[in-house]
């Protein structure tokens, strides 16, 4: 998942905290893609997701002073911020769940390319709780514990949400799962 190893990440965070611009830029470079992916899976729109990336790193820039590496890992902290920012965005625009038919209207060209991907279509129709758990664990490679910290739920809940998300995705993508098998 991450582009930088742990020691380097720690060093960069420490330097950025001390006001080193190069270190902060390196952090942005290392994580902007991951943040974007996560935001995009929430919002389903390039422009909004890019706004989120900007907002997140702006927030990180100012909040870095309060961040201590004794608590959460930097990535956990970063994704918690991203999630909050996304939820705020959704609240602001009063969209509970991004349905494709709505988001298609404002989708740009790049969006359309992604939307043709049936997996993405299926993913966007999942309820948001499942989607965020799935994206964090299956796409970003977080452990159940870390994802639980970001989403403020227990690791067990993360596990079941990801599993349910998988089952639904398989079903939605036409790979129907035989119902009998769960009874045996």
């Amino acid at each position, binding site marked *: 998942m991450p582009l930088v190893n742990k020691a380097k990440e720690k060093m960069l965070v420490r330097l950025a905290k001390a006001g*080193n611009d190069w270190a902060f830029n390196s952090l942005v470079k290392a994580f*902007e893609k991951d943040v974007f992916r996560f935001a*995009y899976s929430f919002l389903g729109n390039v422009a909004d997701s890019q706004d989120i990336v900007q907002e997140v790193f702006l927030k990180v820039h100012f909040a870095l002073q309060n961040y201590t590496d004794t608590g959460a890992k930097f990535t956990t902290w970063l994704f918690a911020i991203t999630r909050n920012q996304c939820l705020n965005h959704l609240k602001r625009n009063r969209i509970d769940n991004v349905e494709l038919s709505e988001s298609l209207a404002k989708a740009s060209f790049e*969006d359309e390319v992604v939307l043709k991907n049936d997996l993405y279509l299926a993913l966007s129709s999942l309820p948001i709780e499942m989607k965020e758990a799935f994206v964090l664990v299956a796409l970003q490679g977080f452990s159940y514990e870390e994802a639980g910290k970001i989403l403020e739920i227990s690791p067990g809940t993360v*596990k079941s949400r990801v599993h349910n998300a998988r089952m639904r995705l*398989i079903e939605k993508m036409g790979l129907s799962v035989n119902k009998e098998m769960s009874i045996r």
Partner: protein
Amino acid sequence: MKCKNAQEFISQYYDKQLSKNDWRKLKSHLADCDKCLELYQKMASLNSRVKALQFPFKPTTVLETKRTSPALKVLVASGSVVGIIAALIIGFSSITPKTQNLSERPASIATDLTNKSSNYAGGNASGISPDTSNPSNKAEDERTVDNKTNKANNLQLVQDISLTLRVKNINATIKKITELTENNGGYVANLDVVQSAEQLREETIITLKVPVDKLKEVKANIREFGHVLAEKVMTEDVTLAIVDLEANLRNYRRQETRYLELIDKASKIADLEMLEQKLTEIRQNIEATQGQLQYQKSRVAMATLTINLVKKNKPKIEENWFVMMFSNAWQVFVGASSALINLLFGLLPFVIVGLIGYGAYRFVRKR
């Protein structure tokens, strides 16, 4: 194992959260249960799609993430100017008949090739050599190499310098070094933090890429940031490699034109197919060689500076010998006491057995 558990295990397996033990259980279950195996395969195909899922990512623009310094831009610009001049000279001196030849070819192939050859000329020449500051000089270099004469003055050296510095404040030094490098048109290629046991030594390895003409200046500046413990300068002569690559490239291009001529003359479809195949092979070779050439030239243009920053933390030593003596004595006392207590407890079973034996003996004697 029940199928429901197995399903969850499959999901956990793809989350990389399944223990080895559980994985073994799952495997044995999958061997028996066809339905779960089917689900496993579906999950596998889902997983491969997840891995392939691309998001329309564009790097952010407002945040200053670009680090192309003005100096680098000038370098690139001068490189392309050099490219044009070099291409003109080469074109007039050697390739002119070939390009004319090409223009008479069937439209598709001809455009394809001219594109490629113009790419090649630009790419080749903009692969920067040590003194890009002087375009005319560079163009002459191109020509001399092309004619395979007088290449003694034109040594292509890859410079690799490593410095070990002892500094007081690693973070501050890193900041200074990055600023210095960026001001001189270089960039930080890598940063590694090494921590030794007991934190007696902190070490950071920082790798810089610096334009060759600025190397001396940068090195001299960095030396002043701390106490120099070690210095190592390595140069690798890649002149021969570059000349070889260029010769190969010329040969491949000649072969390419020859095959193109043959294709014009060919009448059978089988021959055409064969020739086309050969042509693609040669074009692959050309691209590979060009890549290597670019790589070598970029190595020559940017020197590598590896800087090892070391900070020694003083171990805490109790300077008061009196206190030290007592603390030592106390430690010895604690050690001895614990040994004694251990011994006593170790002997306890024997003592108990002995007491019981003695009691029995007394009991028998009394009777």
